[in-house]
């Protein structure tokens, strides 16, 4: 399964679950989803200056009866911690898809500390964490995790492993 095809599968799954707002801080691993969201008149695609804005966006959407997904990379998780008190205290569904950096063939050492801490930090903050390692399982993992978030009104994160996404290639 190519990256483009599983990303299209993820987009279809989110649409099928009624997601109508997608907040994002760009990452190459999310590029296709972001492109699809912008091309879709029934989807509000909101570019953020920092990841925690997306948690607040999701909370507002939930208050108004809409479902959201937040797209970010693992380095953005550190920006989100206090804002996670919002969906947790308010019993709101919150769903995020996180592309992992700093764990598989990483070139940039600055990505490693947050990449190594991502899962532990999310769990410590009260987020339910699921992980997809293989292209064949991504759509199923995303779909089940998003349903868990919306139907049980809890915060859920899906980590897309760097092995799945592919390490960023740096060329001089």
């Amino acid at each position: 399964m190519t990256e483009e095809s599983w990303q299209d599968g993820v987009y279809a799954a989110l649409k099928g679950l009624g997601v109508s707002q997608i907040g994002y801080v760009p990452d190459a691993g999310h590029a296709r989803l972001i492109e699809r969201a912008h091309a879709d008149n029934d989807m509000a695609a909101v570019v953020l200056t920092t990841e925690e804005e997306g948690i607040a966006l999701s909370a507002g959407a939930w208050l108004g009866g809409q479902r959201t997904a937040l797209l970010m990379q693992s380095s953005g998780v550190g920006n989100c911690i206090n804002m996670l008190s919002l969906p947790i205290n308010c019993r709101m569904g919150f769903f995020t898809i996180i592309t992992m950096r700093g764990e598989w063939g990483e070139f940039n050492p600055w990505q490693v500390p947050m990449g190594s801490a991502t899962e532990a930090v999310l769990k410590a903050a009260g987020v339910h964490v699921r992980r997809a390692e293989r292209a064949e399982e991504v759509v199923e993992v995303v779909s089940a995790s998003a349903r868990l978030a919306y139907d049980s009104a809890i915060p859920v994160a899906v980590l897309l492993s760097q092995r799945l996404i592919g390490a960023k290639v740096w060329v001089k």
Partner: protein
Amino acid sequence: MSGLDRRAVVAELLRDTSDTPGGELLVVTGLGSATYDAGAAGDRDENFYLWGAMGGAAMIGLGLAIAQPTRRVLVITGDGEALMGMGALSTIAARRQPNLAIAVLDNGQFGETGHQASHTALGTDLAAVAKGCGWAATATVTAMADVSALRTRLRNEALFAVIRISPAEVPRFLPIRDGARLTARFRDALGVPIG
């Protein structure tokens, strides 16, 4: 230091909330005094009070405004809360969301924590920041006589307003702080289907 009475300002901004295009005004308040002011003006199901999540008020307003395009959303917050979420001014301006307005109660202080001077007392002009981020309509209000006209604009325009209020202490008013309860009653008021 001069400045308007915050309780009088918020009471005027939240006067006759049913007199709003699209129906009852939807209100999100930033943690601390803005939450107390809105509660003191009269508790209502369409008030969503923040007691934390500092820096998030404006973005909650955006998510809500996108989800409820026929309703008007007003975010009322303080200068400290707005400063922490300054990037949101850029994010919201980029959306050109027509049904969202923000009112910042600016006393130049972090009032909740001992009245330390905030950046707005040290040179930052939040209305100018919003303008620089691309907000088409911004305003700064310093006179009580102008608050009534501001109330109308905040219910009809995508306006970012700074209101210079007095840093004087006012009696504390503590509205509901159970987030789950606030969420449930807000969604019920909007008729959002349960689960």
